């Protein structure tokens, strides 16, 4: 492992009761403005027929992947994997709001905040972790479904949970496997419709984004910085809207 620690989540699907305390906790802790969110609970819906029924709830948020597609496309270097803890973070001062990473993330775990013109997503509550606290969503999990910690530390709660588990799943397919750092216990998660998707944009767009945007940015650094950044953001956001 390149980094010192490898932080991530273990989620015991059998214990999620879909209470949504984690959703509200994340919003308040991180001042995520309505209607956006950094965290979801996917309700798989009922399976079976009355009275032989089953229902599972699959919580998710950014998977803090080992090989994050979001970083590969980030042109400004704002998205990075923290070498100390492995968390995938966005430096919002540096983010130009191009939204490429939003398209690239196979789990749709990012959103573009149009009012701030930056991309936002789960930070692993790194500011709480720094203080020695659990992430907000983990600390308040009523069902005891969510765990967070260092997979490189064999004594951590997450490592222990994985060691004890009889069934562990990552949400990956043969085609798309960024080695996500959320490990699921006990649920039929492969049926959830949460399996990673390939990047959404077409080759032409990839080309435009991979070549033209960096070119513009390179240009900016040589010219009137402030004005141009604003202009580029506008340009890109405009294009973003057009696309949808």
């Amino acid at each position, binding site marked *: 492992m390149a980094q010192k620690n490898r*932080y991530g989540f273990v989620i015991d699907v059998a214990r999620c*009761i879909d*209470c949504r305390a984690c959703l509200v906790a994340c919003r308040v802790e991180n001042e995520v403005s309505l209607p956006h969110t950094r965290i979801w609970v996917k309700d798989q819906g*009922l399976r079976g027929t009355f009275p032989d*029924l089953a229902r599972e709830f699959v919580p998710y948020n950014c998977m803090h992947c080992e090989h994050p597609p979001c970083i590969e496309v980030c042109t400004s270097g704002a998205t*990075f994997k923290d070498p100390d803890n492995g968390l995938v973070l966005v*430096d919002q001062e540096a983010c130009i709001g191009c939204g490429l990473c939003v398209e690239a993330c196979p789990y749709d775990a990012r959103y573009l905040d149009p009012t701030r013109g930056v991309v936002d997503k789960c930070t692993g509550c790194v*500011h709480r972790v720094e203080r020695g606290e659990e992430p907000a969503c983990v600390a*308040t999990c009523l069902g005891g479904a969510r765990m967070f910690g260092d997979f490189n530390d064999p004594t951590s709660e997450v490592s222990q949970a994985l060691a004890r588990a009889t069934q562990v799943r990552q949400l990956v397919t043969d085609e798309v496997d960024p080695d996500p750092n959320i490990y699921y216990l006990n649920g039929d998660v492969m049926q959830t419709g949460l399996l990673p998707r390939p990047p959404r944009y077409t080759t032409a767009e990839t080309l435009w984004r991979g070549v033209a945007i960096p070119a513009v940015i390179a240009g900016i650094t040589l010219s009137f910085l402030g004005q141009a950044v604003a202009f580029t953001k506008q340009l890109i956001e405009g294009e973003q809207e057009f696309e949808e």
Partner: protein
Amino acid sequence: MTRIGPHVSRRDFLKLGGASVGALAAGAILAPPAAAAARKAGFIDVAGDGTIPTMCEMCVWRCGVLARVRDGRVVKLDGNPAHPHSRGMLCARGQAGLMSTYDPDRVLHPLIRVGPRGGGQFRQATWEEALDLTAQKMAEIRDNYGPEAMIFSSTHNLSQVQFENLLSAYGSPNYGTQRSLCFNAMVTAFLLTYGVEEPARNYDRVKFVLLTGRNLLEAISTSETAELMEAVARGAKLVVLDPRFTKTASKATEWIPIRPGTDAAFLLSMIHVIVTEGLADCEFVKKYVTGCEDIPAAMAEYTPEWGEAKTGVPAATIDRLAREYAAAGKDAMAHPGWRTSNFINSFQAERAIATLNALSGNVLTPGGCLVAESPEAAGIPLGKPPQPAYPRVTSMRLDGVPWKYPLVPLKLGIFQNIREAILSGQPYQAHGWFVSRQNPVLSIPDRARTVEAMGKLDFIAVVDVILNDTAWYADVVLPEASYLERYDPLNIVDHKLFLRQPVIEAQGEARSALWIYKQLGERLGLGEFFQYEDEEDYLRQQLAPLGAELQDVKYKGYLEVPVEEGDGEIVFGTPSGKIEVYSETLAGAGFSPWPTWEEPPAPAPDEFYLLTGKVGQHTQTATQNNAFLHQVEDEPKLWIHPAAASARGIEDGASVRVTSPIGSVVVTSLVTEGIRQDCLFLAPGYGHASKGLRVAYGVGVSDSDLHVTYTDPISGGQALSQTFVTVERA
């Protein structure tokens, strides 16, 4: 809690989002000054930042909260690990609590109605004017018609003790609580059987949990919900009786979609098996249970086959579950439930639950699952301000307790009967209603009748934090400070005294209930019943016998009180001192002394049972205007089974009309396998009447437009599932 502690290298120059961003933009307009008291207490540094322990009020479980404050604004609420009800967690409602405080729809100034009642037109008034007017009207009613013409109603607030003080000092017997719409059946049954209102549950070593309609994973009590999930993860067996596939049912080992109204039959059949097969904890039963020798004879007719005919659950299943329950011995728990206002026979279901627990001997044994000990029995001597004796009340209660309903505890009462008495003018005419933090317009069945009753009153005053539906019909609205802005009387949990204290300054002119009641008392000439300077003085007087300083309690948020160990001798607070499975009291009042079967009414072939129940994101009507909760709630829809739906040409998401004997509503359908074919389900609390609730108004419909008023003659409970309805495409 796991401790995790690295440092983050790029942290210093990073902006990872949040912090300066306006998630609470709405609230930002209302930014209060930094809480001076909190700063004085040392919670908050010069910058206005810090953490203050207090208590949640988003439901009545009252979790301990650690409120994080920045620049005099509360920015995050975390569960207090030191509080047994939160254990470091808060549910969605608790997490969203600060949005209720910063709700742009808060009522922050006293209001006096200017237009017609229910028109929603108010003008801002000073406290002086609003209090003077309220007291003057209350005095007029007392002088003209006697104090009994004034109804007081409020439920389950920590300030309840001072609300009751105002009521008793004023001299009215008419006390309306929400309880008959909720747990009268459970409380009355456990009082009669064990002498305690609500036994505490202990999941430490439970192996078999029987939930009779208790939807613990959606009707959330933070610590208990978490404890149940831990027990299930440990391998405890969870059996859920519910006509609906709730989230609790989805985690159950066995879900029994029992026919509504037949819980008592199922439970009586279990008792039959246990006593006829000699599977009970005989030693315990002989020692502590009345009528022990006669139980088998009294239960003789309730065979599993009889149970099957009533409940639709196979006799073999009842027989097997009874044996499994008995085999778990003291580690089996038949949960008492909470909102048990379902059918007129719900009281008998509760008596059967009380009996099942007695048979397993789990009550009061070390580590036993049911602790039949009242919280007051903790024996903590709290002080209170000196006061004269209350005036003698001689008039009858409007709700018929006890003159028509001898067994309903006075402090529970029968709320729905008060409404009927206003309308009938019998046994006398009521003239005024003082409501505090309660919403009878939406909670009592048959909303149209409740609104009609309000029209007959000369004066209505409402204390609340928000313009709820009842406040919408009020003449005066008195704005209470939110739970993050005020003190309340102390709360005892597990030998600890917990404090609710302000973590921010009250916004606008909102004031605590302790202050409001005292102001009214003084204006009514009842000042000697309110001998406290202010909230802190009240708390100091409460703490005086314990020799504790308020400052210390404020700092920790609680006070641990040493308690004397009991001598191990178990005496139940019943007339016999035993567990009264056989009850002379019931016999004396003309009811069956044994838990017994009462046949409930059933719907006609084209009708449905209309079920109600909770969702995990709301507390009845009170939280629905919270924008954070609104965002995570499911759209309230009418659940209907696919077979019932297709027979009526109803597709999922279709607009349907539901009609009961008293009204009809149009709502969106949710076609789901998760409900019996003869049942419909509607989440309660929606369909608000107040346009002062800008988030909640216009969302969903209210089951109070459909519910027929049916009252259990023993417990006074409202039978909420006894209303039968039809459904058709709208």
